[in-house]
């Protein structure tokens, strides 16, 4: 029942996205603009700063992710469908999981675009260790989405929710950012510093497990008024 409900919610979000593609396109475009602006800020005399590549990639993911989170829950606010979801005869945490997976999927698509782009603009050898990079991005994106989905769900009824989400999310996701950026930087060394990268991936993975547990426990008490 739990997994089934989560998958239903995910499928539903996917079905909606396929029709309107609004969140997908806006997120992608926003991520692109981010990378562009940062690149302009960090390119010096036509030469991109390699170190900046890792940072810019993760900043773009964080910013685009915040936007996507806001819009995902804006959708559920529109016709109060979130209430209808909470009334489903399944554990309410399943709703949370479904939403979270949707955000991860969306960010995965964004990253599929961002990684080659950043690699191109910064001449960064991001594809040197593809498996490790994917693992790093996955672990980091999941960590970010776990916290983000919970906060965004709770802010659905709050005032000034658009600005509250970043205020709450950014300090909380500092370890994710540090691990992501340092891990990516490690992979960009030549030769790639694999032990460090693996260490960062491990850190993110444990963070994901801890945060996921807390999120699944707290979702129901949080969503009851």
């Amino acid at each position: 029942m739990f997994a089934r409900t989560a998958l239903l919610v995910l499928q539903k979000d996917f079905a909606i996205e396929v029709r309107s593609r609004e969140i997908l396109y806006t997120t992608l475009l926003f991520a692109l603009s981010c990378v562009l602006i940062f690149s302009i800020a960090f390119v010096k005399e036509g030469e991109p700063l390699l170190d900046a590549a890792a940072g810019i990639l993760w900043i773009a993911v964080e910013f685009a992710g915040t936007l996507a989170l806001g819009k995902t829950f804006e959708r559920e606010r529109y016709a109060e469908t979130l209430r209808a979801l909470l009334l489903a005869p399944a554990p309410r945490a399943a709703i949370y999981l479904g939403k979270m997976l949707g955000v991860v999927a969306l960010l995965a698509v964004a990253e599929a675009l961002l990684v080659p782009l950043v690699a191109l603009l910064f001449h960064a050898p991001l594809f040197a260790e593809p498996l490790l990079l994917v693992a790093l991005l996955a672990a980091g994106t999941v960590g970010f989405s776990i916290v983000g989905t919970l906060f965004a769900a709770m802010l659905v009824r709050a005032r000034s929710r658009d600005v509250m989400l970043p205020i709450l999310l950014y300090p909380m996701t500092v370890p994710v950012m540090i691990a992501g950026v340092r891990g990516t930087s490690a992979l960009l060394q030549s030769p790639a510093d694999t032990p460090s990268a693996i260490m960062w991936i491990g850190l993110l993975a444990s963070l994901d497990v801890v945060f996921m547990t807390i999120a699944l426990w707290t979702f129901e008490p949080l969503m009851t008024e």
Partner: protein
Amino acid sequence: MTDFDSVELLDVSRHFGRRRALSHVSLTARAGDILGLLGPNGAGKSTIIGALATLVAPTSGEVRYGGKRARALGDGLRRHIGLLAHELHLYPELTARQNLEFFAKLYGADGAPAIDAALERAALADRGHEEVQGFSRGMRQRLALERALLHQPRLVLFDEPFTGLDDHAVSIVASRLRELAAAGAIVIIATHDLDLADGLVTRVALIREGRLLSDEPAAAGLRARYRSVMGHA
């Protein structure tokens, strides 16, 4: 067994800081009842509906379903609850059919026949493949009604179900509610529209400022009764 044939509010209070939304409300509704929660805007009707739907937790007091608390009954309890509020709970980007299918699957009330029947009842059989955002308010309301009742809930909660409906639609909704009650559902309607409630509800609970002023069987002259109990505040 999560099914039940009565629902009770036992001395339920709910406050938000200094604001009292509900104050020591005790109420019982049984299968076959059509209970009208009547009162002015802001009286607390929606809060009562929310408490019955397990969406709002009381600050004190209990809500019981067939004598048992929600916690004891678990998530399965919600299989027997159907809610329709003003906002309609429909995804505008999805088609009518997709909306119904999604909620049907959530409740495990699958099956194309059930969905076809629901579309039929909502007089939208030929528009099942159109996106809801293109529907008029009346069409959405009919679809939302069917969505809420798709899983044949025992407890049917309606919060202002008649807003924006034309006369014909109102009578359709009313007869539907009577059918449900006759089939053994507990129907609870919150509304501030006395004319529509009159003749439809079998019991009346008058609410003002979070307090239950009266709980009695419906009788003729509802409006007069309402006025006399509510006074002119």
